[in-house]
């Protein structure tokens, strides 16, 4: 009796695992399938490197060039990661050195609140409070890549803090006794011994956070300005995810515009997947 139950249990879990797996693979394949027709109209190279995006034909033909969107996505996520890196390392040092286990246990859920705030709320507050500040400093309309990056950096901070703190605490438990015995100041020891040892882990978590930042849609869309130009820090830019959210409504189903937006999604997904795969190789070599 127990044996049959055990078998049923095993095959039930196995079946659901494979159903879930195939569903996820199906999503990926489906996006690829919906994206392919556009490559009959433009070449892959032109699609990725082209600078002009004009999916609706007003008599000058259509153009599908994603370069500025790709650059916009990369730029905004990179700046966000750099800003977040400073805050996160500072906060992690604080949590590793100043806080004890009990304090950490209570602080983490508070920091995690940040990852739970709906991105529309972030976009809204940034639009209300930060955009006028940028405007008063002479940024046209107040919305720019830097503003979007600042918002993003706050959104991804919880992810970086949790993994970096984890590394710091582990290393600290390992080395702190010898550091103290040598009579070195705790903060000095943290910076000169433990920080260099965690660089690899920090980089890994930054890259993962970067992937998250690239896919963020609503908050970025609301404050990045959305212009199809070469993105600069204080200028406007548009990310791939915003492009999809903004134009999906205009695209008639099964038109080239529609396929192009799926292809844009594919480009975004592919970028994230490539980074992830490289990351896995990298993390394997490092351990």
């Amino acid at each position, binding site marked *: 009796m*127990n044996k049959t139950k*055990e078998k049923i249990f*095993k095959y039930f879990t196995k079946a*659901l*695992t494979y159903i*879930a*797996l195939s*569903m*996820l*693979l199906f*999503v990926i394949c*489906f*996006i690829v399938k919906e994206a392919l027709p556009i490559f009959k109209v433009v070449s892959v190279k032109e699609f990725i490197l082209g600078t002009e995006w004009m999916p609706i034909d007003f008599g000058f033909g259509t153009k599908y060039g994603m370069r500025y969107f790709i650059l916009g996505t990369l730029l905004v996520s990179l700046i966000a990661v750099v800003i977040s890196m*400073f*805050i996160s*390392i*500072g*906060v992690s040092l*604080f*949590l590793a050195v100043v806080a004890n286990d009990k304090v950490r*246990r209570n602080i983490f*859920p*508070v*920091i*995690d*609140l*940040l990852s*739970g*705030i*709906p*991105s*529309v*709320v972030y*976009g*809204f*507050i940034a*639009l*209300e409070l930060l955009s006028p500040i940028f405007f008063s400093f002479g940024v046209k309309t107040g919305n720019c890549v830097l503003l979007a990056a600042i918002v993003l950096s706050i959104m991804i901070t919880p992810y970086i*803090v*949790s993994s970096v703190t984890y590394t710091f*605490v582990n290393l600290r438990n390992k080395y702190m006794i010898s550091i103290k015995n040598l009579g*070195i*100041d705790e*903060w*000095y020891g*943290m*910076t000169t011994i433990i920080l260099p040892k965690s660089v690899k882990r920090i980089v890994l978590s930054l890259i993962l956070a970067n992937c998250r930042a690239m*896919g*963020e849609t*609503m908050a970025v869309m*609301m404050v990045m300005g959305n212009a199809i130009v070469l993105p600069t820090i204080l200028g406007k830019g548009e990310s791939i*995810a915003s492009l*999809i*959210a903004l134009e*999906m409504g205009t695209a008639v189903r099964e038109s080239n515009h529609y396929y192009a937006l799926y292809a844009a*999604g594919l480009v*975004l*997904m592919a970028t*994230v997947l490539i980074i992830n*795969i490289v990351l896995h190789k990298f993390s394997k070599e490092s351990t």
Partner: protein
Amino acid sequence: MKTLSKIIKFFSYTSFILLMGIIIFIFLYTVYRSIGIINFEFIFDSPRGMVLGEEGGIFPAIIGSIWFSLTALILAFVPALCSAIYLVFYLKNNRVKTFINNVFENVAAIPSIIFGLFSYAVFVYMLGFGRCILSAGVALALMIFPFLERKIEKSFLEVDKNLLIASYNLGIDIRRTFIKIVLPLCFKEIISSVILSLLFAMGATAPILFTGGVAFATVPNSLLKPAMALPLHLYLMIAQGASQINRAYGVAAVSLMILFIFSTLAYCFSHKTYKKV
């Protein structure tokens, strides 16, 4: 040496205070701006007015959000739990395990709007469900599945291996070991992961934008009908411009309050989650 450690100390304290300040500011400022907006009518009434949202409340949006996220949770929870059990306790083939793990991790990194696109094409259009809570729920379920699975799997992995070995040696099969030993140990954490993924689904706008979220609907009573959602309602209010801004703060404050209450719940359940760090 002294200066360096002083600089680092200062930097570390400042960033910590800065981060905490930002968190507290976002919550307090939003709530402060919504004073006078949020009242009984705002929470329990339908949106009204010549320009929708100018009068009335946001009740359909609150209930709609709960429907969306619960649908997603119901769709994602059983597969996530089973996958976690299978991967941790049954699957022995390491190559298959790595492959599945890779797929799950990569999907976790896929931008949420792509799940929206997928569900729009497959569920709304091809399968003919139309714009409805179910179609949006599928998109949200795909989004929270990897998140939930990872969290449950992690809590299973933290169970003391010796306990499991002892149990197996006594001739107890995996199923009973799981039910009698693993589940009681991980129960709290599973509940807390469930709450967190519920919040994750509740805050998402992009996946429901084309799949089931609408600008106006009454309180939903079926999975096959569209519904309003809090973040989408907020987004549309902002897009409509100035006259709505104060009321938009009210919507934002309500979402933050829901977040706060549920996070507190999750925290009560998860003393273990943060202990390990």
